[in-house]
């Protein structure tokens, strides 16, 4: 069981409001991702839930009990750190066993749980090694092993993949998702990478300047962003924003069109543009264009597109998939 509810959680450092007041509901077994640009307070929020930082005000309900003023140990949560934070002087076995020892488990129970976790994470051959003799991916798995043996109410991940190289990151992403499906324990995962957020989450929480901008399923955030910030943050390449006459003609302050929702033509269309740079990725092509009277835009076309710099093209936004925003950057429902 691991339902977590944040009620008006506030955090101030000196006289800076890092978290001005967050309300959030996390259901048992959910995979929730906190995403946002660096400095948006997502890690601070995670540390508040963990108990590594003291809340200035508000309640942190874990399974219905307010834990806001309890020590981390009493909250029954496990955390995987960005730096892995393994104990360098202990073997892998003792690293994983440490939490169980602190909980006063018997040797037999500890041994069984450690070996079980090692089996799940493919660490059985490395139990007698020290963290210094392991690769980055193995260290990450030890950190996860240390978290799962304690059978926590929820796992907290603080940017766990950002120290790994690109290929390993994709692997570990799948492993963590697989682990979640197997254990069905609540997971809270912090990242600045919207791809990780989109691929792993049941529910994404987009944060900016300590405020929750939007909470929702990945595809809901993609299809119906609540404001311009979420629209720009979720999706890659970034959404195009068109202001001025084009927006005024559609009764709004700004129109947003995703690069993949622009129909490309070399003959006709709504917006005339000149190609500046074409990035050919094989499966798809990113065109960075300069649209007449609008400015720079990005277009994503599937497959090979035989275009290069200075070619003239025409773009037509898919009318079903344009986003309109008012002058306060809020989305206007279509």
């Amino acid at each position, binding site marked *: 069981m691991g339902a977590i509810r944040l009620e008006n959680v506030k955090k101030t450092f000196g006289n800076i409001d890092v978290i001005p007041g967050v309300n959030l509901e996390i259901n048992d077994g959910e995979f929730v991702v906190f995403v946002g640009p660096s400095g948006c307070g997502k890690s601070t929020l995670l540390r508040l839930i963990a108990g*590594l930082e003291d809340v200035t005000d508000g309640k942190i309900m874990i399974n219905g009990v307010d834990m806001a003023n309890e020590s981390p140990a009493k909250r029954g949560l496990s955390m995987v750190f960005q730096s892995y934070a393994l104990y*360098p002087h202990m073997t892998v076995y003792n690293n994983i066993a440490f939490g169980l020892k602190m909980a006063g488990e018997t040797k037999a129970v500890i041994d069984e749980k450690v070996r079980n976790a090692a089996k799940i994470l493919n660490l059985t051959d490395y139990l007698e090694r020290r963290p210094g003799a392991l690769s980055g991916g193995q260290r990450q798995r030890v950190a996860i092993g240390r978290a799962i043996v304690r059978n926590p109410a929820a796992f907290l991940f603080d940017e766990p993949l950002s120290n790994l190289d690109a290929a390993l990151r994709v692997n570990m992403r799948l492993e963590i998702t697989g682990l979640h499906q197997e254990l069905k324990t609540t997971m809270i995962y912090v990242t600045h990478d919207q791809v990780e957020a989109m691929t792993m989450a049941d529910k994404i929480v987009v944060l900016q300047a300590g405020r929750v901008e939007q909470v929702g399923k990945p595809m809901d955030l993609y299809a119906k962003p609540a404001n311009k910030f979420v629209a720009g943050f979720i999706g890659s390449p970034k959404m195009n924003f068109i202001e001025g006459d084009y927006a005024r003609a559609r009764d709004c302050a700004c129109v947003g069109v995703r690069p993949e929702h622009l129909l490309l033509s070399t003959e006709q269309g709504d917006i005339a543009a000149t190609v500046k740079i074409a990035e050919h990725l094989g499966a798809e092509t990113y065109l960075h264009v300069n649209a007449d009277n609008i400015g720079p835009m990005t277009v994503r076309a599937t497959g090979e597109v035989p275009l290069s710099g200075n070619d003239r093209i025409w773009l037509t936004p898919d009318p079903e998939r344009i986003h309109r925003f008012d002058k306060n950057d809020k989305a206007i429902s279509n």
Partner: protein
Amino acid sequence: MESKFKTPFGQFAYTVFAWIIGLAIFFPILWMVLTSFKSELDAVNMPPLFLDFNWTLENYTGILEQSNYFKFAMNSVILSFGSTFIGLIFAVTCAWAMAFNPTKRTKDTLLWMLSTKMMPPVGVLVPIYLVFRDWGLLDNRFGLIMVLFLMNLPIMVWMLYTYFKEIPKDILEAARMDGATLPKEIIFVLLPMAIPGIASTMLLNVILAWNEAFWTLNLTTSDAAPLTAFIASYSSPEGLFWAKLSAASTLAVAPILIVGWFSQKQLVRGLTFGAVK
């Protein structure tokens, strides 16, 4: 390590220079040891005799008969290890707080602590002497342990602080998440990672306390007197006995010299920690 000197001559000059400095520092100790094996007459001979004198052990037998070396030595051990041990308890907790939970004033506090070392001890001799007299702490081991511990505390805190700064805070937080209470976090996670730092801090403070002469001479007479007092008892007003004094000094520094010799690697690492990467 790559040499900074490009020419073999530069390397040679550097080596010679290092040896000269090293020998200059070591010479007084060597001379003291040599003198301790001379007769009193040979000891004051002019020109000084280097190796061609009659080697004798009479100074050692003499002073071991005359005074109770082991009582003084035992006091030295109790005072230096006692003050270091108590100091460690305070310094570890203090350095933990400053390294892992710093405030705006942590740097000032550290500087202030160090500034107490800049005051000449004689400046507070009278007040401390009076307090010791009134509390019955004169010539008392406990009283002296307290003085030595407080005297070295700033250095211990500084050394441990530098060490602890190098330990990632994440690891301590991981221990907290794993359910370790504060004492367990310090004993099972922080201290094992800081063993080299703690060892060199201990060692340096044992040496400093062992060699401390000002307070040990002024606040003791016989019961709590350590080896510094044992040496001083041979520099008597009725004329200097150089050979006996040298033998007493040799006996006094021998234990700590041996300990220091065996742990020099640890000590050098500790003293340069943070400075050399």
